């Protein structure tokens, strides 16, 4: 099978609020998908269902041909090792240096040799242009630098899947492009990636596929060109006209 991620009839509610409504979705191995949509439409929830940060009440989630919805906690931890996540708020380990941030989990969880992990970490830090910051603490870095470290940290686990939840939304405007550049570079790798982002330029550049999520339903699904230039759905058109007005 060529699908890395499959969601089958996934529904998710918070109390009475139904956030995801019967979503079925297949994501191809090594593909790059961008999810857009208005605030509160369920983008983060959809992303967080993939590593089971949120447990959907209905439906199945299948990662690399293994159903994870019914896994025991221990197996879930193993699955999560191969699903990296980059957060809006970076979430670097505040009490650890940049190098420790990258090396800790692979050594602790994947039982790799520190020497090998460190070598790989240095390579990834070079990739995000932060080789000179290996011994800095996160609090001493700018937002853009922290997010680049967070990306390197996720890469250093050698994941099969990378999830990005609005990785540039918390950044000052002048730092957004440095992070987008790194993400564009990272998108060349053979990892299956899903980005929740409002950066349309970035999306057109790297995405194979764009999903427009509206009120818990995938309202639009196509190539960037199809979705951005010929949206079928009225709600999608409204959304784009608003975004264009604001930027």
């Amino acid at each position: 099978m060529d699908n890395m991620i499959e969601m089958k009839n996934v529904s998710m509610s918070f109390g009475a609020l139904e956030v995801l409504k019967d979503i079925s979705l297949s994501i191809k191995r090594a593909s790059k998908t961008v999810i857009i949509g208005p605030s509160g439409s369920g983008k983060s929830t959809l992303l967080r269902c993939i590593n089971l940060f949120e447990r959907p009440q209905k439906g199945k989630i299948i990662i690399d041909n293994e159903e994870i919805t019914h896994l025991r906690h221990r197996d879930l931890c193993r699955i999560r090792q191969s699903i990296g996540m980059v957060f809006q708020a970076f979430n670097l380990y505040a009490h650890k240096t940049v190098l420790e941030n990258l090396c800790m989990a692979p050594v602790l969880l994947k039982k790799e040799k520190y020497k090998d992990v460190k070598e790989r970490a240095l390579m990834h830090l070079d990739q995000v242009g932060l080789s000179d910051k290996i011994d800095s603490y996160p609090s001493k870095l700018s937002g853009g630098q922290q997010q680049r470290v967070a990306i390197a940290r996720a890469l250093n686990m050698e994941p099969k899947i990378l999830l990005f939840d609005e990785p540039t939304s918390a950044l000052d405007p002048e730092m957004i492009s440095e992070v987008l550049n790194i993400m564009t570079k990272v998108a060349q790798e053979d990892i299956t990636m899903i980005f929740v982002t409002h950066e349309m330029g970035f999306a057109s550049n790297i995405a194979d596929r764009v999903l427009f999520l509206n009120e818990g339903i995938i309202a639009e699904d196509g190539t960037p060109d199809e979705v951005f230039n010929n949206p079928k759905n009225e709600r999608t058109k409204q959304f784009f006209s608003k975004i264009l007005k604001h930027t």
Partner: protein
Amino acid sequence: MFALFKWKALFLSWDVFILGFAITILVSLISLIVTLSISLIVGIIRCSNLKRSKRFANWYITFFQNTPLVVQIIFLYNVLPHLGIVFSPFICGCIGLSLYTGAFGATVIEAAILAVPRGQFEAAYSQGMSYLQAMYHIILPQAAKIALPPMTNQTVNLIKNSSVLAMIAGGDLMYRADSWAGENLFYGPSFIITGLLYLSLCLPLSKFAQNLEKKVKTK
């Protein structure tokens, strides 16, 4: 009170005070270690989603925070023997002090854990850590920093509260000072020295806690 002969008598029995002082330090040290363990375990339980343990933790904290330490220690010493459980005054003191201070320490640890941003947990989970791994490697080291000043204050309280051992003839500084003065009625010198000895333990710790708090605030 300032009669020279009273002070002379006191210095001749210096060994009484030093012995009491040593026992106070020993009781405090043992109780501190037990207190820290209780605080850590109960504090973590309070932040977990273990329903039963949580109810037990709530009950423990409410009960021990809201009854006087003296009552707890006298209960341990005088009532438990009727149930066939006999502890020496020293052990009773350590158990009472630890349970009492642990009830406060647990809320300190709980608050410190809750003060660590939620995102730290999420990052750890996203990399595949279990609850305990995330707690041990990511959350507790950061919570410890936050908890250190209030925990030091709890230690000061513990040292001062160890004086209730005197109520059950615990052999501590307070007890020995009181019985020494009870024999010769030299209460003034006896308790001046006793106060100074407690001060010599508590003041440096208080200052230490204050400095830490300042450091955390200016950050």
